[in-house]
């Protein structure tokens, strides 16, 4: 799960590179960011559950 969260952030990092310097996202990119952040929240949630149990 640690890797999954880091990899999600890596995908986000790539999006930042592709849209530098303005980081203005088109509709597709916005949807992608939304999906990545939701995944990240879920992954962090799972980490909390697993590590802090």
């Amino acid at each position: 799960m640690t890797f999954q969260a880091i990899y999600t952030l890596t995908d986000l990092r790539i999006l930042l590179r592709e849209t530098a310097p303005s980081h203005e996202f088109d509709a597709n990119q916005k949807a992608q960011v939304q999906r990545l952040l939701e995944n990240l929240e879920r992954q962090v949630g799972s980490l909390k559950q697993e590590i802090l149990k």
Partner: protein
Amino acid sequence: MRCGNGIEARQVNELFINIDPIQAGGRLTADAMKTVIAYGDGYSVCDNCRKPNRLDYITKPPIAEFHRDVAKWLNMDAVRTVPGARRGFQAVAQTYVNKGDPVLLTSLSHYTEFLAVEEAGGVAREIPASDQKLVTPDAAAAKIEAVKKEFGRVPVLAFIDQVDYQYGNLHDVAGIAKIAHQYDIPVICNGAYTVGILPVDGKALGVDFVVGSGHKSMAAPAPSGILAATAEREREVFRTTAIVGDVTNRKFGIKEPEMMGCTLMGATLVGMMASFPHVKERTKHFDRELENNRIVMEALLSIEGTACLSEYPRKHTMTRVDTTGSFDKVAESHKKRGYYLQSALEEKGITGVIPGATKVWKFNTYGTTRKQAEHLAKSFTEIARENGLAVSS
């Protein structure tokens, strides 16, 4: 933000459009970044090293398969990974060059080719580039004849840069290789700016070796690269060890002296491997890259007094321009002197131009999106107008 021990987290490519001429093709893919995180530990790729105990035989991760795939992709017969293109030059020079041997380079050759020749004891002889900064087969033939006259023998090896680092010009490697082979001179093609950027076919070029740079052009961490050889040359450069210890009587299996045993390990290797499918794919779309370069070049050339020193229209995205008659004129009276250009570019979210350079400088648009190319073009003309330079529409 710091990574540790005073090392700042580098965010150049996240915050800016980076047009540094040597960095563009080496930016990592997401997959490479992910593998680097997982395989950062020293001997990480060696978990499943089994007999015959050589890195390029490891199947998990699929290193052996990667070697085969790269050879096939370049239409060559054998490949080894190396810590940078320069180590490829070194391996080949060490194999063919002895003390006092003449070696053919060009007036646009990268310095590491010279160092490889020097280390092997060779003598450098350069094919001069034409006024258009191109190295031609005719010039190669003339130089070989001149060397023959001077040394009483032909060069033992020829280094030809497919795209040179100075102008980013595309040279007729196939034509030069054909001439060199008429004299039985093995040819090493320096593909540091082409392998991983545009399609490269070693057999079509007719060369004995192709060298590529992972960190320059294959979206891989530094130092990384590849050395590809034909079947004939493979036996020579990738020969296996024969040495025996006199006390222990030890032998070292199939380790290769020119590769110093095992080659590229850990994060550099898996980074290059992870990027490879993306790199293969991107070379098929080099026309898009040239189109982005054209957008930027047309904007630059619309600024009065700006000239393109590289061949034009461009055949590569790394380009050398002369702005002595434009941006440098502004520098003469600007309070920031020559640093105003870099400063103005950074304000527009652009980096990679040498600080203080306003006369002759290089940039590379490789890897930019169309939108980023348009931003670059607009930014250059805006900076020109803001500083009183004439811009044609």
